[in-house]
């Protein structure tokens, strides 16, 4: 079946996803918020809770939370102010993995302004060759903490099932992405969905359609922390298509796990603690190699990196990422929550036009 | 690596990426800036502006404050004539009569002669560029100053006939030099002691040992108390006084009419060397010859154990061809040390 879109530009998958999510949100199921891509979402799914990705996309950062200054990362400060205005009234708990210094300070700020139980899981910033019991215990104790906070039993079977299901989801999503069957817009929706992995697998089974022919579009890799839907709109309106998404809401959430482990906790540690490749970790080269390899294997002819203002892991790495990847590169820094749409349109438009001319020139040769 | 960094490594016995390239661009900078020499000598802003403009144009690796060798003598009271198109010349030494010596007062760099302007020029250069470029303040050595106080002919005669008088004069000149060097240091400049009259082209090695070495050494000892690196510049032929020059304790020696291999062989383990493209080459030779001469100098210089600065044997002439100076500097910058210890 060819991909079709409703009047809002939603594909069948997106339309059905929204319907299912609306039902899920009405179900009264307890909600657990999660923030960063290194959050073991399986812990939430194993507890039978609804994972809520905390993207305060419709809150404008008019008032900074507490005493946070304007030179704080705009994503982190917007998220913290979201709690200030009780933007997430239904959360039973909040969970996140550790990445950068500002992220952990944001968590402290949130913990100060809300009574919602919160856990920041300490994960290694370096790449370990072997499992460290310290970090393994972090995940294990978080699992028990969630169970205690939510009043659910600790079940290794349900955790194993959640891990296995999510891994199946990752495998399938990454396969579909390679084949071009899943758009980046759909990918973002899956990444931030309130449905668990089982629900998402079922959804995809029912709604996946033949990919649209986007061969005329400029193929791009998108990097950065988090980007809002308007950015994808702008890219598409400018004649581009994001074929690889290396942001914290894209393909990097659906990387196939590399090495199986004997217990679900070790699987989680392996995946989130050891294999997760991102610019906040040290050394930074493994992440850069991975981003470059991915961008090239997906056939990207250019890279757009968008980071929230004052986001250090992406913003301060932009130059080395650009030099390492070696493709035409556009770096944009935007205030999270108040995108300057016309400026973005101008710059992205100019970038895609340049790539288009380059492609035409190559074709002519 | 900027020039300041390059020099800093050299001065702590480290090899930088390459030898610094520093032709002695002094009053030549006035011609570059279109400023007349008298103004260059008397107006600190004019001097500083000239130096900055020249450095921006040619890219050599230090700034220099130097007008003429008689600045201390002039401050003592000797009369110098400033003439259009040329450097000041001694007209009337203050010690024409030996008896005058009794009333001589050591000049204060803050108030006497052109010294205040001299020091102010150093300070201005340091303020503007001292983070990127070393500023060298040229201090006439006592023997050269003595020539300005007594007149060169009388001085040379007195070396034989009235050495006691000369020692007295040299003592005063030394105090004057120490004060000026001190003021230079406090203006942010590194001292270059300049002693053209003590050259082997003028006096014998024995005379150097008796009348130049002890007094130059006193200045260097004073500056070494503050751990400053001191450059000694003596133009002309100094090949017969190299042992004595090492004994002065100078940290760098700017040489002129000696073959680089010879001086490196004799002194390269003891002192850093600065030199020595002949200034007249920058007037007379072709660019090709200058390039080859610089290459040859660099090939020898990078082997000097304590370090080397590619320079000219003496001041770049007032009417030097800019293209030729460019050639020398650009070729000098291509000399790389094969291996850095860092």
């Amino acid at each position, binding site marked *: 079946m060819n991909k079709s879109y409703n009047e809002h530009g939603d594909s069948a998958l997106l339309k059905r996803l929204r319907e299912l999510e609306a039902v899920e949100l009405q179900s009264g199921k307890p909600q657990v918020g999660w923030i960063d891509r290194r959050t073991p979402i399986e812990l939430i799914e194993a507890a039978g809770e609804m994972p809520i990705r905390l993207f305060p996309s419709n809150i404008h950062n008019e008032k900074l939370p*507490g*005493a*946070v*200054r304007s*030179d*704080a990362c705009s994503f982190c400060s917007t998220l913290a102010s979201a709690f200030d205005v009780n933007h997430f009234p239904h959360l039973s708990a909040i969970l996140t993995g*550790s990445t*950068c*210094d*500002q992220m952990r*300070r944001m968590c*402290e*700020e949130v913990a*100060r302004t809300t009574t919602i139980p*919160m856990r*920041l899981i*300490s994960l*290694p*910033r*370096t790449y*370990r060759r072997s499992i*460290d019991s*310290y*970090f393994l215990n972090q995940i294990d104790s978080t699992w028990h903490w969630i169970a205690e906070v939510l009043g659910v039993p600790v079940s290794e079977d349900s955790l194993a099932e959640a891990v296995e299901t999510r891994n199946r989801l990752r495998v399938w999503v990454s396969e579909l992405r390679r084949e071009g069957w899943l758009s980046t817009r759909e990918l973002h929706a899956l990444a931030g969905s309130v449905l668990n992995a089982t629900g998402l697998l079922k959804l995809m089974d029912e709604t996946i359609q033949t990919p649209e022919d986007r061969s005329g579009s400029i193929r791009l890799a998108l990097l950065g922390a988090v980007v809002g839907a308007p950015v994808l709109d702008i890219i598409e309106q400018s004649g581009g298509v994001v074929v690889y998404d290396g942001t914290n809401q894209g393909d990097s959430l659906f990387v196939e796990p590399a090495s199986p482990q004997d217990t679900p906790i070790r699987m989680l540690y392996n995946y989130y603690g050891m294999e997760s490749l991102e610019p*906040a*970790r*040290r*050394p*930074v080269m493994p992440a850069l190699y991975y981003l470059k390899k991915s961008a090239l294997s997906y056939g990207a002819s250019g890279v757009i990196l968008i980071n929230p203002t*004052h986001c*250090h892991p992406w*913003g*301060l*790495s*932009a130059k*080395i990422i650009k030099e390492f990847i070696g493709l035409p590169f556009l770096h944009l820094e935007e205030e999270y929550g108040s995108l300057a749409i016309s400026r973005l349109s101008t710059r992205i438009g100019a970038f895609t036009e340049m790539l288009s001319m380059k492609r035409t020139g190559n074709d002519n040769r | *690596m*900027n020039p*300041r*960094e*390059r020099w*800093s490594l050299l001065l*702590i*016995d*480290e090899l*930088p990426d390459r030898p610094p390239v520093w032709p002695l661009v002094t009053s030549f900078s006035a011609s570059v800036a279109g400023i007349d020499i008298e103004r260059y000598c008397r107006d600190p802003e004019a001097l500083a502006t000239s130096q900055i403009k020249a450095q921006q144009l040619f890219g050599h690796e230090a700034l220099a404050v130097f007008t003429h060798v008689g600045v201390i003598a002039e401050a003592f009271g000797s009369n110098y004539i400033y003439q259009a198109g040329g450097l000041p010349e001694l007209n009337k030494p203050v010690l024409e009569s030996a008896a005058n010596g009794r009333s001589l007062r050591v000049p204060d760099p803050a108030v006497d002669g052109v010294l205040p302007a001299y020091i102010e020029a150093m300070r201005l250069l*340091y*303020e503007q560029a001292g*983070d*990127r470029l*070393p500023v060298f303040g040229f201090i006439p050595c006592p023997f050269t100053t003595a020539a300005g106080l007594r007149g060169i002919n009388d001085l040379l005669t007195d070396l034989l006939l009235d050495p006691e008088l000369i020692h007295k004069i040299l003592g005063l000149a030394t105090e004057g030099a120490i004060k000026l060097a*001190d003021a230079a*240091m*406090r203006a*942010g400049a590194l001292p270059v002691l300049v002693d053209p009259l003590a050259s082997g082209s003028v006096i014998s090695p024995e005379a150097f040992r008796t009348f130049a070495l002890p007094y130059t050494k006193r200045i260097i000892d004073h500056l070494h*108390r*503050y751990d*400053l690196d001191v450059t000694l510049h003596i133009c002309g032929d100094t090949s017969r006084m190299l042992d004595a020059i090492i004994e002065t304790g100078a940290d760098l020696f700017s040489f002129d009419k000696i073959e680089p291999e010879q001086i490196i062989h004799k002194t390269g383990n003891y002192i850093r060397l600065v030199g020595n493209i002949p200034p007249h080459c920058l007037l007379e030779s072709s660019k090709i010859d200058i390039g080859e001469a610089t290459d040859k100098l660099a090939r020898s210089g990078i082997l000097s154990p304590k370090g080397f600065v590619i320079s000219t044997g003496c001041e770049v002439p007032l009417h030097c061809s800019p293209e030729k100076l460019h050639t020398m500097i650009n070729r000098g910058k291509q000399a790389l040390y094969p291996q*850095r210890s*860092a």
Partner: protein
Amino acid sequence: MTTDNQDYSPRQIDWQQWHQKYLDLPPGLIEETYYFRHLGKHNWSRYLFPPSTFVPYGQKLLRELRFDNSEAALRLWGFTLSEWERIYRARQNGMKVIALMGDIGALAPLVYSFPGTVAFYPDCLWWTPFMMQSWELFDEAQSAGLGEDCCFVRAALGGFRREVWFPRPDLVIATTGATCDDLAAVIAGIENLGHNIHYFELPRRSNIADRYQTGSDEDLIEFLAGEFQKTAESLATVTGTEFDEKRLRNSIVKSNRLRDTLDRLRVMNASSVLPPIGALEMIFADFSALSSYGDPDEAIRVIEELYNEVASRTSFGMGYPNRDVRLVWATPPADPSLLCQVEAMGCRIVGSEYLINQSRPLLETGSDPFTALAKGLLNGSLMGSSNYRADLIIREVENNFADGVVISGIYGSSHCPWETGLIVKALRSRNIPVVSIDVSPPGRKREQAQSLNRLKAFCEMLSAKKSAKATRSFERVPHAEESAL
């Protein structure tokens, strides 16, 4: 105090005055003051030189600072300012050069347990643009992608790229985790420069709402002890010397001697009636606890001499007059002239939280040395929450009877935007006056003037408050004649 005609009364003098005063020092004293004594006496290892020695080599800011007039202070200055040359001399004499990044004092005792090593912190290059009044290192960092959105520590990346400010290290030990993101960016920037880098994993303390803790997190201590052990293995490989526990214990003892002296110095400085030494001397003394400026034995001599000087002044009731307002300073000012400026406003710095808290407490000597180092590291200023840091500052205020707090932050850094407001709030909730400024980069005189205006207003307010309080106290005490009525 060894010269006959030395002025014994404590004063702050400028570099020109030190230039003159220096001539009064006996030459023998200068000859006998040298570092790396195990290498014998050399011309290059003397370091008792005045600030004017360093001015012609580009250290412009020295002309604006005010220095204590004691020989002990001179020795501290000479020792501090000669550090970069010392690292090169170490290499020239066959010592292994170990660059430490991010741990700020915790790893140096381990490095020094290996003979023939010298440790230094490239992070401390952040002072250099200010000392030289130069943007060269910042420009170099900018060309590598670290611009004004990164804290001044980006000068360290400039230093690595220039390959001038220190010799190429034999090993870089880079701490990652509970450090600021700016330093993490610097560490990323040096990766492709071909350095031999050992990464030290430093998890933050795990309790989000934690208050000040001293070694209560046992799992973390065990983990960190393991990290120190792994680091020891890397050091053994680089130095070609096996790790020796006894040497580590001795190194810890030595580090403790320095830390203890510094602690007593701080207490004495704060508790003296008159400030016996300046804030500049104190901050550079404090920072000696990080890597001993490359020579632990000499650092001990320098700090002990400083301590003796301060003790002597205190016992005679001597110090700088007209410094009534007592301040705690939080976050080290990259521009050290700010300390002099504030002192000139009638203040004295009686306490500090310079982000180097891990270099302060004594390390345990009775237990496993790796565990001792790990416990020491738990005191790190950035390891815990912002509340922890706020508590450290409050403790400094209370212990030292401070009248107020100055926080000098950096716009664009990772921890300042989050913790500054919280610290201000915490202080104000305890009625502790506080002012927060951002340190302006070199050359931005107008920006700096604004900060100085705010500081001046703050100091005047505190001074007026103190005077009013003193007046009220006076008025409450009845005069003798009145009480007799």
